[in-house]
């Protein structure tokens, strides 16, 4: 029994890591551009498939494919920003939200057109788990957790100690104030997209390592990612990390008592509870 709980906790941390990487991006985009980015899940999908090109096409290991995928998604995110989101920004953020919803379906259809609609995997065959006591840990899970920790540490250093990291936090606090203090806001927005896109690519790769590749894999994770961002306090990258972990663990733990098909409903319930009790989230993000 206790073994089962620890096992589920490990699964929860793995899921939570993937959610956290997605939620940080959503939070970053929200705090700087003030809209909920509905295409974020599909950016993850694009990242996972971009890595597949290197892994399956060239036979390279994932660790080589990851930087390529990060680059691809960053370029895709910037292309969308320049061609669509920037021109739309003069109107209301609500229009951006609708546009991003359309973008989500464009990205997903593009993935279906290029790679087909079936399931795919990076490496076929069964990975032998490492057994500690009654608990089985797959090497992939260790990679996902370690990779997430590394990325979060890097993001922390970036946000706290670099010029652009500070500028980004300033913009998140008050865009107008940031602009009149001479912060190059459009360059900060570009960097935010690179970070959000890059993290989405990594989340997509981790998700594909944990499960499989499928054109709707990212879309299916969009709700838990938003839930993580909201529970953590939308617009707060550190909150998104905590929210991701919380939602991930809650989703996996819930399978002890309810049908695993309703994992998403657990994320939704936590999100709704947050909206009712404390709409600003744990870390006092922006609301209203």
């Amino acid at each position, binding site marked *: 029994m206790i073994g089962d709980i620890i096992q589920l906790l490990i699964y929860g941390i793995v899921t939570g890591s993937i959610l956290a990487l997605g939620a940080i991006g959503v939070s970053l985009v929200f705090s700087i551009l003030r809209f*909920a980015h*509905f295409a974020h899940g599909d950016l993850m999908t694009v990242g996972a498939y971009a890595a597949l090109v290197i892994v399956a096409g060239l036979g390279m290991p994932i660790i080589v494919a990851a930087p390529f995928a990060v680059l691809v998604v960053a370029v895709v995110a910037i292309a969308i920003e320049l061609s*669509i989101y920037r021109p739309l920004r003069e109107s209301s953020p609500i*229009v951006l939200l609708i546009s991003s919803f359309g973008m989500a379906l464009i990205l997903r259809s593009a993935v279906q057109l290029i790679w087909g609609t079936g399931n795919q995997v990076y490496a076929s065959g069964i990975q032998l788990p490492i057994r500690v006591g009654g608990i089985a840990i797959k090497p992939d899970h260790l990679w996902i957790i370690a990779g997430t920790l590394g990325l979060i540490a890097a993001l922390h250093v970036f946000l706290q100690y670099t010029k652009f990291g500070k500028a980004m936090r300033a913009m998140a606090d008050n865009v107008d104030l940031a602009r009149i203090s001479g912060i190059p806001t459009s360059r900060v927005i570009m960097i935010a997209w690179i970070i959000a896109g890059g993290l989405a690519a990594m989340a997509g790769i981790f998700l594909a390592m944990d499960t499989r590749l499928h054109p709707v894999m990212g879309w299916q994770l969009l709700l838990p990612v*938003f839930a993580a961002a909201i529970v953590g306090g939308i617009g707060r990258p550190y909150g998104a990390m905590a929210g991701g972990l919380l939602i991930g663990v809650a989703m996996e733990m819930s399978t002890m008592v309810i049908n695993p098909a309703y994992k998403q409903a657990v994320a939704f319930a936590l999100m*709704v509870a947050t*909206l009712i009790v404390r709409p600003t989230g744990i870390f006092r993000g922006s*609301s209203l």
Partner: protein
Amino acid sequence: MELAGLLSYFVFFASFACIYAIMALGLNIQWGMTGQINIGVAGFYAVGAYTSAILTTPPTPEHLGGFALPVIVGLIGAVIVSGLLAVLIGMITVNLRSDYLAIATIGLAEIIRFLIKNEEQVTHGVRGIAEIPRPLVESGPLAGPVFLVVALICVAIAYFLVERARVSPWGRVLRAIRDNEDATKAAGKNVVSFRLQAFVVGSALMGFAGGLYAHFFGFISPEAFQPVFGTFIVWAMLIVGGSGNNKGALLGTVLVWLVWSGTEIFTRLLPADMATQASAARVLMIGVLLQIVLLTRRQGVLPEERPKPIPRGDS
């Protein structure tokens, strides 16, 4: 294709367009008039369809009910249940920024789809519900045209009601909320209550459209309520046609539905192994169309008609 085939295809096309038109009108109340984002249109559509199906099908052990009630009772049930669901979601999000409504509705739609897939004793899961009766004429060559007439009448009534609502004081308050919430509040309007009303009325229309869909096909399964068919296309219709304009909602429905159905004819000519790719290409095309309209003509083909200012002394 001979004439009879062409005619029956037209009846099918027009009937389906009527169902979408009612959804577009519902979304127009929410987005066009009030500025609320409902990305869970498919959820209300599905709830309406399943409610009506369960109420009207003959008794069966396969799913809940089979109450064999008349179609009209099923449709009323669809309106009530989807409306109640909207009250629930609306109450949670009505005080929050519209982003939260978007996120909550998308979550709701996904969970409804999971529920439909997994709660087999209620919905018969992925195998769906069959034997849903058609209105008035059950089968035969007249069933299609009769349904089309019924659907057209429904669209006409829905259009009339929504258009009346738009020009009424109620509609004016909704637009005022959309354009300047604080000023509306300052004018003494209960913004929260109006917003909730608009959301519920719009969602109830979507539920009604779902009920019609169930009686149109006679069979429903979770596949029909995916976000692409249930939500995305409706948004494309409203935005292409012109948000805030009910005529625009109808025109957009016809235009997008023409593009969607027209391209389907082409995909049928392709070999089977390319069919899935082709359907992805169609979604991509509608997505690009949506972006182009947003970028170049945000008001849509038929822009919103601003009501004329009331002459002095007349109010």
